[in-house]
């Protein structure tokens, strides 16, 4: 395998082959490589026999992650007209001993295409939490394109996800959920910026954060409704659960509306564990520690339950401690 140098990187054919294998690229076309950049394109729905099922693309063992050591990456994804795709990015890989990760995604969802994407910024398995992870994601949604996006953060000493969604085609819609889990002295930021530039587009953003110890979480959400974006529906909510006296959150839900023919809303809540919820569970024989865990787990699952792809959802739940091997806490 190619060893990254500190200078300009040259991505060799064998690395490209490795990438194709690990990324389960069936149904996708490789766009080519340049320094620190690669891309893929999902094949059109009509050319893929199993288009009814979302196309899986799993970067869990991303060979390019090694290249990102002390470097950065730019990834480009195109979901073509009418295609349906599922993307799951989880990392950085804890076995590579990264200290600093910087990734940039450009995702283009073309007309009538559907993308479910889960970005899981997860460094929880590191022994020393000196990892700093930064993800930037830019989405462009064409006419009648659909995005179901889940952004999850856990484990970094400093973690930041900045997401920018452009609804540039009429009928485009974005469903966005965020979950930030802060422990120890971690500091995590989630920025979501949605731009509605044409009429009849929708976005629904709900971000959850649960912080304990001395962790600090920041939510910065902004909905921008342009002058010509009539009949936009755009909503954002930020819900925060604080589990210790020294943990803290900052929340900035913002709406910038430049026309009057819209339905919009925004709001934030910050709370600790609700004693009435605990009382209810305890009155059913559940001890206090388990009751606290159930309320916390339930809070987090509100973000995760929206992931439609079962395999991905279970992987995320497992990594967050919401699931035990062999059974969901909610299985019945």
């Amino acid at each position, binding site marked *: 395998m190619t060893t990254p140098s500190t200078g300009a990187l040259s991505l060799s054919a064998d690395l490209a082959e490795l990438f194709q294998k690990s990324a389960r690229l069936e149904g996708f076309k490789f766009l080519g490589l340049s320094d620190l950049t690669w891309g893929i394109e999902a094949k059109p729905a009509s050319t893929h026999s199993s288009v009814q099922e979302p196309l899986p693309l799993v970067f869990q063992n991303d060979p390019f992650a090694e290249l990102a050591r002390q470097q950065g990456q730019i990834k480009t994804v195109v979901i073509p007209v009418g295609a349906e795709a599922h993307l799951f990015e989880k990392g950085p890989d804890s076995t590579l001993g990264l200290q600093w990760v910087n990734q940039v995604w450009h995702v283009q969802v073309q007309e009538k295409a559907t993308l479910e994407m889960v970005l899981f910024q997860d460094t929880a398995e590191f022994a020393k939490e000196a990892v700093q992870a930064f993800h930037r994601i830019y989405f462009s949604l064409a006419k009648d394109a659909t995005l179901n996006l889940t952004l999850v953060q856990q484990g970094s000493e400093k973690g930041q996800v900045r997401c920018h969604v452009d609804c540039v085609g009429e009928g485009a819609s974005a469903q966005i959920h965020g979950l930030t889990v802060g422990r120890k002295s971690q500091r995590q930021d989630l920025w979501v910026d949605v731009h509605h530039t044409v009429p009849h587009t929708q976005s629904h953003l709900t971000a959850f954060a649960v912080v304990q110890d001395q962790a600090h979480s920041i939510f910065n959400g902004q909905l921008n409704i342009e002058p010509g974006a009539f009949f936009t529906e755009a909503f954002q909510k930020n819900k925060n659960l604080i589990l210790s006296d020294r943990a803290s959150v900052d929340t900035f839900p913002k709406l910038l509306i430049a026309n009057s023919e819209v339905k919009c809303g925004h709001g934030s809540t910050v709370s600790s564990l609700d004693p009435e919820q605990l009382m209810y569970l305890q009155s*059913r024989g559940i001890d206090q520690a388990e009751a606290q865990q159930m309320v916390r787990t*339930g809070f987090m699952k509100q973000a995760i339950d929206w992931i439609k792809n079962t395999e991905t959802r279970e992987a995320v739940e497992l990594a967050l401690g919401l699931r035990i091997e062999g059974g969901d806490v*909610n299985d019945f």
Partner: protein
Amino acid sequence: MSAPLFEIKDLHVEVEGKKVLNGVNLTVAAGEVHAVMGRNGTGKTTLAYTLMGHPRYHVLSGKIFLQGEEITALSPEERARKRLFLAFQYPVAIPGVTVASFLRASLKAVRAGNNGDLQPTQLRAVIKEEMKKLNIPDAFMTRSLNEGFSGGEKKRLETLQLRLLQPKMAVLDETDSGLDIDALKIVSENLQSYRSPERGMLVITHYQRMLNYIKPDVVHVFGGGKILKTGGAELALKLEEQGYDWIMQ
């Protein structure tokens, strides 16, 4: 002579610095159903929460006994495991926690070692059978606990829990509120059929309508944080006709 099933002795309680209960005395023998009626704001719900051990309600003096054992200082979960049950007037929603996972955790906590450890398949069969009796659809199980539930759905779920957890002593805090006529009939019949010579119930209500299904052995009138009058089932009928003024005078 054996101890009564449930006993409250001279109970004085304050909540957030305000004295609400002023010396409640009440004894429920095994097999009995007692109704507690009274105007709004007289302390009925405070009594219910105090009996279950809600930490917001402070017992200033007095004692509570279940099957002869004092439970006044026990935590809510300890009381539940000793088979005391409270059907809440306003069951709280817990988003993200499904009814199924909640029932499983609760049954595991209360019934394990009490009524034999049921295997998961047996447990599922028992729950489904009880759900059928209460007209609760299977889809209920995957919903978040009490979130977005109608008043009727909440009370059905409370009743389902009572039947599954099989308490010795059940306190029902206005279980008839928020129910339409059909739901009232289903819930009340399921509560009535739960009666047995070994079990007791304390039914807090404003109306006679549920007592038409669950005939009380004893009716207490509550006022000013204590019991003002005690009588038989006919007392509830008289209250329905004449109101509370004649007692207050």
